[in-house]
């Protein structure tokens, strides 16, 4: 089969992959107002009432929110530095964060995590779950 037939077929396959992925993403999108932390549901107000507030400087200005390390300690995990923490967004995006980084990070009222001096790829937004690994 020549390129003149193969290339349109590949283009069709690409479009089918894109469309079917879009349908899947839409169907599996998580929309909720609470954050699941190790199986327990917390509202953002509850999270703010549990842990200390911290302000950090980022290249997008100052960000104020709940200190992530304090949140984990207050929720009651034994060896906090023995674990990594997976932050999951409603759109399926997730990042695994080490304890060292947790000690510098904040979770803001709009449910986004920030860290100073790090790539924005770590700034997961619309947090729906925090999993301890």
């Amino acid at each position, binding site marked *: 089969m020549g*390129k*003149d037939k193969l*290339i*349109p077929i*590949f*283009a069709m396959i*690409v*479009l089918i*992959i*894109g*469309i079917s*992925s*879009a349908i*899947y*993403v839409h169907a*599996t999108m998580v929309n909720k107002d609470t954050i699941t932390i190790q199986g327990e549901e917390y509202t953002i107000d509850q999270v703010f009432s549990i842990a200390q507030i911290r302000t950090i400087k980022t*290249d997008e200005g100052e960000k104020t929110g709940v200190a992530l390390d304090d949140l984990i300690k207050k929720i009651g995990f034994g060896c906090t530095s023995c674990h990594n923490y*997976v932050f999951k967004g409603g*759109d*399926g*995006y*997730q*990042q*695994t*964060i*080490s304890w060292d*980084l947790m000690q510098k990070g904040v979770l803001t009222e709009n449910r986004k995590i920030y860290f100073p001096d*790090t*790539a*924005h*790829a*770590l*700034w997961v937004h619309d947090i729906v779950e925090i999993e301890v690994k």
Partner: protein
Amino acid sequence: MNKMKLFAGIIVFGSLWGFSECIIGSSLADAGLPTGAIMTGFFALTFLVMSRMFYRQPGMQLGMGIVAGGLRLFNPFVACHICSALAIMAEGAIFELIWYKLSFDFKGMKTLTMQGSMGIISAYCVFVGGYVVTQVLTPIIAGSGFYLENLIVFMPRILSSGLLPALVGGFILPIILLAKNLDINISLKDRYYYPITAGISIFCWVFVIGNWFLLS
């Protein structure tokens, strides 16, 4: 082709691509438009295909990606600058791979179907490939480490996000290829070619870096 002339071409097209990513991309993001789709489907594809059309040299688009990504690093005001710079560099390399077996004179792309199809494939693969590369490399560079499970669960989102750039690319490539008929000649006399390419490149870099200083 004279290597110096090719080098100047890589610098000028890479700078234009980087400039559009930094300055136009920033404005598109502020306006709430799908920046990634427009930047890859329209701007990146235009610069990549036009440079290939005019210079007909292998490796040029790879070099352009490095230049454009380098320039993107100087404009950290739109989203993740390390991610974007890595994505741009990867996009140049992926485009080079996709078009590796295709002739430089675009002889195989006479029909609109072929042109549109190549636009779809190029824009989709370049966008998705760049996205995947940045998802792998950014956490490593940021020091938090790469976790395969994070990429796997996010893959449907990445694959779906390539749809819009693909549609834009499928529409835009046949239009770009109309430039073939313009018979644009890059064999300007050296005394014009080098000052023009240097002038455009310097403008792009000065504007982007100046923008960085003004905003910081």
